[in-house]
């Protein structure tokens, strides 16, 4: 299984596959279905300083090959996440990536400082890209300076490496990625959801109570691949890629694009066993394709840049 071993800042992963934040709760439900120890890592649900209820329902809507969500960062709050959820997760040999959210910089800083002390939290994922909250979230993610500033503040108080989660709802994702790298981020995770909307045929009203929501699932995969391709060639920090991954083949495509590990979100709802299924399939797929190690796939698409740019 060492063919899947991946080393990232703070994270020594037995394989590069992990559930994406918000699509796996804190693991309790999936633990009833399979042994979480098979996972490379786990990105837990966004945590804020105070408990949050989130947005009114309906919070999800289906779209062609995708879904919209507007959960609104519901979570039990920092204290309970540390005291109950992370404590419960200690039984597993899985390094946790804690997804950190807030309304203003101070909130992020507080959550980062405290949650990074939890023994099984090996890295933070700064969520500056949630499109479903009125303040904070995406506001930080679309402005290079704000993103850099927040990264710096969080980095200063964190005991573990800090990954920043990028929003795809921007004109120039490379500029934002570079600003975040310069601010000291240890890695990037991308992409969060695309802003979308669906209207009810009968009423004309938005299906989501929050009106707009975040688009995820296979529909957004080509956008994610393109952005990872662009950003990975512009920065020197690793990228954990996500956006529509459903199969081992998709994982390889993300590695080709320039990801060093991947997260699976929406697909968990379609098939709750998707993560272990992918992890089991990967070595066979590496055989078929003739690679020794998953990292051999990393950035293969880059090589053609020079040629095509000529």
């Amino acid at each position: 299984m060492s063919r899947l071993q991946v080393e990232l800042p703070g994270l020594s992963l037995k394989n590069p596959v992990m559930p994406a934040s918000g699509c796996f709760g804190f693991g309790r439900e999936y633990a009833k279905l399979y042994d979480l120890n098979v996972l490379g890592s786990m990105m837990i649900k966004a945590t804020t300083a105070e408990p949050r209820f989130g947005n009114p329902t309906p919070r999800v809507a289906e779209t062609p090959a995708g879904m919209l969500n507007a959960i609104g960062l519901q979570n039990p709050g920092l204290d309970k996440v540390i005291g109950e959820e992370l404590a419960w997760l200690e039984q597993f040999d899985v390094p946790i990536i804690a997804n950190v959210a807030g309304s203003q910089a101070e909130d992020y800083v507080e959550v980062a400082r405290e949650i990074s002390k939890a023994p099984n939290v090996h890295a933070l994922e700064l969520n500056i890209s949630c499109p479903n909250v009125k303040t904070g979230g995406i506001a930080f993610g679309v402005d290079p300076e704000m993103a850099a500033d927040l990264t710096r503040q969080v980095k200063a108080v964190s005991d573990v490496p800090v990954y920043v989660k990028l929003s795809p709802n921007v004109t120039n994702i490379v500029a934002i990625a570079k600003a975040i790298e310069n601010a000291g981020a240890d890695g990037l995770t991308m992409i969060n959801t695309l802003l979308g909307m669906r209207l009810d045929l009968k009423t004309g009203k938005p299906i989501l109570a929050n009106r707009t929501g975040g688009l995820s699932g296979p529909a957004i995969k080509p956008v994610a691949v393109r952005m990872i391709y662009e950003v990975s060639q512009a920065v020197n920090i690793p990228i954990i890629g996500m956006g529509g991954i459903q199969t081992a083949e998709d994982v390889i495509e993300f590695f080709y694009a320039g990801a060093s590990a991947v997260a699976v979100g929406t697909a968990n709802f379609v098939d709750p066993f998707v993560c272990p299924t992918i992890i089991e399939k990967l070595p066979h797929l590496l055989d078929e394709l003739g690679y020794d190690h998953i990292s051999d796939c990393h950035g293969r698409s880059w090589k053609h840049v020079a040629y095509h740019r000529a």
Partner: protein
Amino acid sequence: MMQKQWMDVVSQREIATDIFELVLQGSLTAAMQPGQFVHVKTAEGDTPLLRRPISICSVDLEKQQFTMLYRAGGQGTKLLARKRAGEQVDVLGPLGNGFPVDEAHPGQTACLVGGGIGVPPLYELSKQLTAKGVRVIHVLGFQTKEAVFYEEEFQSLGDTYIATADGTYGTAGFVTDVLTHEGIQFDILYSCGPTPMLKALEERYHGRKAYLSLEERMGCGIGACFACVCHLQNDPTGYTYKKVCSDGPVFPIGEVVL
């Protein structure tokens, strides 16, 4: 326990306008309780992407079969309606917490109130209640005559009143009209149906022993995604909640905000 299984289609037929009865077979049936539901992938591939929550309507443990009744209305359920005997369906279940059968005692009267596509889960409930000696009364509301289904099945278990909104069959009006006109008395009430109906029952039977089954749009169906939460009625903090998929879909009357 909850499993994901390719179940065999035993039979499928249209029992009322756009209402289908699908019988599936597989070991997953072993753990099923009335009021629980399954999460069904209606097509392979990416469209439709999400599973569809459908209630368990009746279970045959010996044959390892269960029945679901559903309305083929949207993209997913219309595809499901095409499945034929011999094909397979990808089912995740059983999910959620069903109706508490134990709360009704032999000799007592249980009133089962269903509205439209909320009627199906009451059938297995009624079977289990009558089996343990509980007297059941069914009050079932539908839009119109063509939408009525399973009347005989319910009738064979206990008194069954039908209301139709357009008055084309049974009592004209809503289930609450039947409850009033017939002066129905009960020890315990179980209900499933559209939210306005549940709200009317809550107003009427607040403080009584009653259980309501809720509907909400779902993502995961197992409690992980926070798509299906509802507020608690007694909630000083404002952020306590229940998940319809894993804490429900059945809640005691008065527990959650409808």
